[in-house]
């Protein structure tokens, strides 16, 4: 059972956002609001940390995005009273794929995620703000996200929380119930859900990941705990296979001092 002390998590994550944003001399964040539970929770925590007026929520629908998503994002904006804007990404995405009409869903989905990233970063510059991350630990470990797309951010309060913890914390901070209880979806096409894409539920995989990663269970111990071997193998492979997404690009070492190898500084260097 994954422990979930929502009162303490809330206190820590609010303090984290406040500290890491203010120490770089800024007061504000921008966050992409998909209408899903992750971005909604990030926005709620940021509003508590920095004040609602310092959180800009940006909705970035594509033509085929579900109207429910836009509505749920609007419910979050209304509940928090944060400033918001809507940038429709259909034109810029379609303009690109006119030249590559045979691109499939994966390329189109990744392109949309990266277009959204460029919009968030542009508005972060316009508004003197940091981009607030929304990727949770489950997605990051499985690699279920777009590199340089939704995985890109300056500060991420959710990266050490499993999806089931995100649900619990979202409930505790007042994220609208409709947002928490709907099926998680990348919303690339109608009827898509994360769990049907992945082939397992978040609750199942979170229990496995928690024991595998946090508690360092071996495969034999995981089997003894009741997980099927093919499921264990599949998830282990996903974690290992997506390691590149969790690291900076590799650099060929030629000098005496190479970035991140023997040039080692915290990101909060001098902050």
């Amino acid at each position, binding site marked *: 059972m994954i422990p979930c002390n929502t009162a303490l998590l809330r206190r820590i994550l609010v303090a984290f956002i406040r500290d890491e944003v203010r120490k770089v001399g800024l007061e504000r964040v921008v966050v992409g609001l998909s209408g899903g539970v992750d971005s909604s929770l990030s926005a709620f925590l940021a509003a508590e940390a920095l004040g609602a007026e310092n959180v800009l929520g940006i909705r970035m629908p594509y033509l085929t995005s579900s109207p429910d998503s836009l509505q749920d994002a609007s419910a979050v904006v209304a509940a928090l009273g944060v400033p918001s804007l809507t940038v429709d990404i259909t034109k810029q995405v379609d303009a690109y794929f006119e030249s590559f009409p045979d691109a499939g869903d994966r390329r189109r989905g990744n392109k949309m995620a990266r277009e959204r990233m460029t919009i968030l970063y542009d508005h972060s510059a316009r508004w003197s703000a940091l981009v607030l991350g929304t990727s949770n630990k489950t997605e990051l470990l499985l690699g279920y996200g777009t590199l340089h797309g939704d995985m890109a951010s300056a500060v991420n309060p959710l990266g050490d929380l499993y999806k089931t913890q995100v649900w619990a914390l979202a409930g505790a901070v007042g994220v609208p119930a409709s947002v928490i209880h709907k099926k998680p979806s990348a919303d690339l096409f109608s009827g898509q859900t994360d769990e049907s894409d992945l082939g397992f539920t978040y609750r199942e995989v979170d229990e496995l990941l928690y024991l595998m990663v946090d508690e360092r269970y071996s495969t034999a111990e995981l089997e003894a705990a009741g997980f099927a071997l093919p499921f264990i193998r599949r998830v282990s492979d996903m974690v290992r296979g997506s390691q590149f997404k969790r690291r900076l690009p590799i650099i060929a070492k030629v000098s005496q001092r190479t970035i991140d190898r023997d040039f080692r500084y*915290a990101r909060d260097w001098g902050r």
Partner: protein
Amino acid sequence: MPEGRFTVAVAQISPRLGDVEANLALHQQAIREARGRGADLVVFPELSLTGYMLRDMVSTVALRLDAPELNHLKKQSQKIGILAGLVEETRAFRFHNSAVLFDRGEVAVVHRKVYLPTYGMFDEQRYFARGAEVRAFDSRFGRGAILICEDLWHPSTAYLVALDEALFILCPSASPLRGVSEGHEQDDNARYWEMINRFYATTFSVSLAYANRVGFEDGIGFWGGSEILDASGERIAKARYYEPDLAIAEIRPKVARRRRIAAPLLRDEDLDLTINELLRIRGRATRLDAKGEVAVLKPVAGRARRVKR
């Protein structure tokens, strides 16, 4: 100030990583507040002048103990004792994670961290030279000892300073929060520390001032919760969790006296037994002489010393 009785403050600050000048200013504020509240001694967290996650900054923020940057602290220590954390550079260009007690206008005591955690999220042995001494010292506050953070996770350090007749332990710390389990107002690491602080104060009947920091460095948060315990293990001051604060309390040696009369465990401690067993465990050659005494080789000089068994 009666013998051994003094008021200690723990300054729970959030240092700026790698910015000694900004941190000196932070120290001034806390020193002013501690003095205003009647403290005779103010204890800052581990590496309070530099921040914790220094990595390659270690050599650039390091200070010799005669560095002009420290003059102001020395001067202020004519009015109040100040224990601050810094990177100490030696004449041989070694860098220590040190806690320095400024008192009566000068550097009175230096403790160099002995146990440098290098596992999990920690990297200290990569950057710091290891301290080689665990000792109590005499001061105008009475006899005490300084142990830095991980030092105190090794029961041997507290045992040694207690036998060296310390009546109080000052523990500067930079303890990261981790482990959020249900039903508690603080993280698992905070609860672990509170348990061992109480254990040491109770077991060795010493007062303990534990000064932890707060703030975040690259997403790693420090839990604060600094505390002062008397020699009976009672918590006599507590700082807030996760936020800057200052906690203050009076250390009264009569508490240790009462405890040590009720249970004179330190008096009864069998040093020779401990030493002999440690030497055996360590694998050093020992032999029995004709009278049945153990002849033990001294670690450095190599001369046999007789230890009664």
